[in-house]
């Protein structure tokens, strides 16, 4: 199986996920320049973290119009697996491949730290190596990381189990409040209805080696590999 890591002008996080796939997992992976229009031969498309186009106007706003994005949309519509991390998530939202938007952090500051995540849905291509309600540690590093969508969309996300990761306390408690804003604020990653497009703000590629402090993130990638090689892709 083969991964593609898309590079847009100004993309800054491509090397981190590439390193995990190639050197940690020994998978074959290519960089694909945004001007390309063809994604044939790839099984998983990754829109990497960091920044693209300086995140000018809005993170992802310009990148979504890159030539490669038409191919990404087509690839996704045909059921191909697409993973957007951080900036990649923002691009998926701007491209309407996932619902909602990401707003500026409440603190108005960039935040770089480890976060605790609760796995809300382990029955996906991306999370089948996690355990139900398991608490993971993954770094976050973003400026626009607070997820937003309208109430109707939030209901759908909830009913269809599209919320895959929630921010959580160590003891796994995610305040199960009715308050819509608080519930929104806990969302760390969502998947589309069909289950082939995942967007998340935390960085699995930054928690895939012991030397970096943990390997929880690695299991997200092995989940993908497991599913695809399992079904002989």
């Amino acid at each position, binding site marked *: 199986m083969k991964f593609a890591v898309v590079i847009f*002008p*100004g*993309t*800054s*996080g491509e*090397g*981190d996920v590439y*390193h995990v796939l190639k*050197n940690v997992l020994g998978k074959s992976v290519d960089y694909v320049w945004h001007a390309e229009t063809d994604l044939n031969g790839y099984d998983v498309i990754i829109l990497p*973290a*960091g*920044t693209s*186009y*300086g*995140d*000018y106007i809005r993170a992802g706003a310009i990148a979504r119009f890159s030539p490669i994005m038409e191919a990404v949309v087509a690839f996704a519509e045909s059921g191909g697996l697409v993973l957007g991390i951080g900036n990649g998530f923002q691009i998926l939202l701007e491209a309407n491949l996932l619902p909602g938007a990401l707003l500026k952090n409440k*603190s108005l*500051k*960039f*935040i*770089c*730290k480890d976060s605790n995540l609760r796995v809300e849905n382990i029955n996906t291509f991306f999370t089948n190596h996690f355990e139900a309600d398991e608490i993971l540690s993954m*770094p976050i*590093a973003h*400026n626009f990381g607070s997820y937003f969508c309208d109430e109707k969309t939030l209901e759908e996300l909830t009913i269809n189990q599209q919320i895959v990761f929630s921010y959580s306390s160590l003891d796994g408690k995610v305040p199960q409040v009715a308050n819509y804003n608080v519930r929104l604020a806990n969302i760390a990653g969502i998947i589309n209805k069909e289950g082939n497009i995942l967007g998340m703000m935390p*960085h699995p*590629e*930054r928690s895939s*080696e012991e*030397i*970096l402090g943990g390997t929880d993130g690695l299991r997200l990638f092995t989940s993908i590999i497991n599913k695809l090689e399992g079904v002989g892709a």
Partner: protein
Amino acid sequence: MAELTYKEMGLNDEEYAQIIEILGREPNYLELGMFSVMWSEHCGYKSSRPLLKTLPTTGEDVIHGPGENAGVVDIGDGQALVFKIESHNSPSAVEPYEGAATGVGGIIRDIFTMGARPIAVLNSLRLGDLTDEKVKQLFSGIVAGISGYGNSLGIPTVGGEVYFNPIYNANPLVNAMGVGLVNIDEIALAVAGEVGSPLVLVGSKTGRDGIHGATFSSEELSDSTADKRPTVQAGDPFMEKLLIEACLELIENELIAGMQDLGAAGLTSSIAEAASKKGRGVAVDVSKVPQREAGMSAYEIMLSESQERMLIVPQVGSENKVIEICNKWGLEAVIIGEVTDDGLFNIYEGEKLVGTLPVLALTDDCPVYVRVSEEPAYYAEHKAFDANALQTKDLNSAFLDLLSSPTIASKEWVFSQYDYQVRTNTVVVPGAGDAAVLRVKGTPKGIALTTDCNSRMVYLDPYRGTMMAVAEAARNLACVGAKPLALTNCLNFGNPEKPNIYWQFEQAINGISSASSALNIPVVSGNVSLYNETESAAIYPTPTIGMVGILEDIACRQDMAFKQAGDIIVLLGDLATSLGGSEYLFVCHGLETGEVPEIDLEKEANLIELLLQGHKAKLFNSCHDISEGGLALALAESAISGNLGFKVDLAADGKAIDGLLFSEAPSRVVVSINSADISLLQESAINLGISVNIIGEVTSQDLIINIDGKAIISSDMEKAQQAWGEAIECMMD
């Protein structure tokens, strides 16, 4: 813009006369402007060159010392580290966000101009009294600027330091250090290439921003700088990122003869420097320079300090390939002139020659001043201070006050705004240890990075204080397991035309020289920022030291957190008591005085050796050097980081108790080790003449120091954590 006189451009009568002599005529306005920026302190190093020449700059690992855009040291396996520290003080005082952001942009350009992939940024900040609203604004603006620019480049900001002192209220210091990794055979230099090679300008369009920035940064800040505000430059990190990728691709494809970033004094300086390297001349047509604004004059184009621009001299015949690759990255790249053999800097506006001057006159003929040096009266006065005369304080509350002093307290508010993890190499992250440690993918090696300077010590005794800064940097590297390799320095001082300031400057540089040769850590790059003064006062002399070190085996790294209850706590070094220049005197007695503690560089070298042996034998479970706040605060930081307590017992033996706790005497480190390993440690320590003091043990909770059996300091973890962890946050948000 209204025409300036040569005085307004910062030239004096003698210098103007010298220019006339060189040209054999009056310079025109363009030529005058070019001289004034090239002969400014910032570009010409007028007041510093003779002193800088005395720095030790050679060593077996040094590939390039001062003189290039950045220093280069060999780290084996055909790889080298490229690094330099630079100031962006006055721009940050005027516009903190853009000033700090463009400071990062500038130092990063110095790194990839050498052909290196930038892998890390550090930042050394000096701010005023954090209770002052204006200072808070400067602080948040500066940190946001570094964060905004560095983060979007995907270069981790992995370390640095922040000190707070009212002396910096109106004169904040922003020093940024850039570090890059390069294959030795791919190092690029700023040379002009062959006669006839074209000069290609790449990147941002040229605007009116930053004109006379170099001159501006060489003048004291006064109310009139308000009028100079048009010189503020805004950064474009996206453009910088494209430049990095394009330039590294050009080098990979061996298309470049020379490369030079555009920084202070813009086109004038980078072209002159590139050309002077080979005694060449250049012919430039300003009408070819892409312009952001209408109707720019040759003068404005040649002096503009618009950011994110690079000058490239392609290999003969490869200019089209160069332009092609730049365009692929969405970068504008145009030929603006060519290298000539007449040694002249000729500026054309289309066909018309609008300026002509000898290249070397700009770069080499810059006048050099050996200023008058005079020891200030304060030096002897402070030395005479007697700490025994202090009124007694409750030392437990002193301890808590120190924990929450912003200079000592956790800097998480700062570094959580920096993406310190991107590139996934940062294995000792900000706050975790005395220096940052990065792995070098594909090798067992690691590199360690730090910046250090306690400017209060430097003020009280510039010579000793600066030796202490170099020693602390080296010690910080050794504490995380790295052998110090080389250093860079950023000399932030006041107005050198004042004898007392020049004395500080001279003494500080001598301090770097002494420490650098004693510890065998050569100086490979640096930067000078003078005239950091307002009407009221000069800043403390602040010779910031940036240092890099190497870990042959990254498995031998160590951080400062206690690891397990029951480990014994050992002080490597002496139970010193000198309180001169300490944060304790400042915070608890409102005093900045005293004799700066003695430093024995030979002992420091042995301590570093001992630390490296210990790390190699994996003896240490934690390692933290003693700096601001002394022994008590070093213990507290290790405890808080490890969320474990300690019980320490000291004997006064007639020594001053506050001295024992809070002395900032150098060459001392607190380690925690397995009790079984103590004899091993003692053995190597004896051979190296370092005293090993077993002072207590790691416990599961509470921070306790008994002296002669009496509990002097006793705090529960929560209280300490809060005081240390939330101090800055509470003041800022």
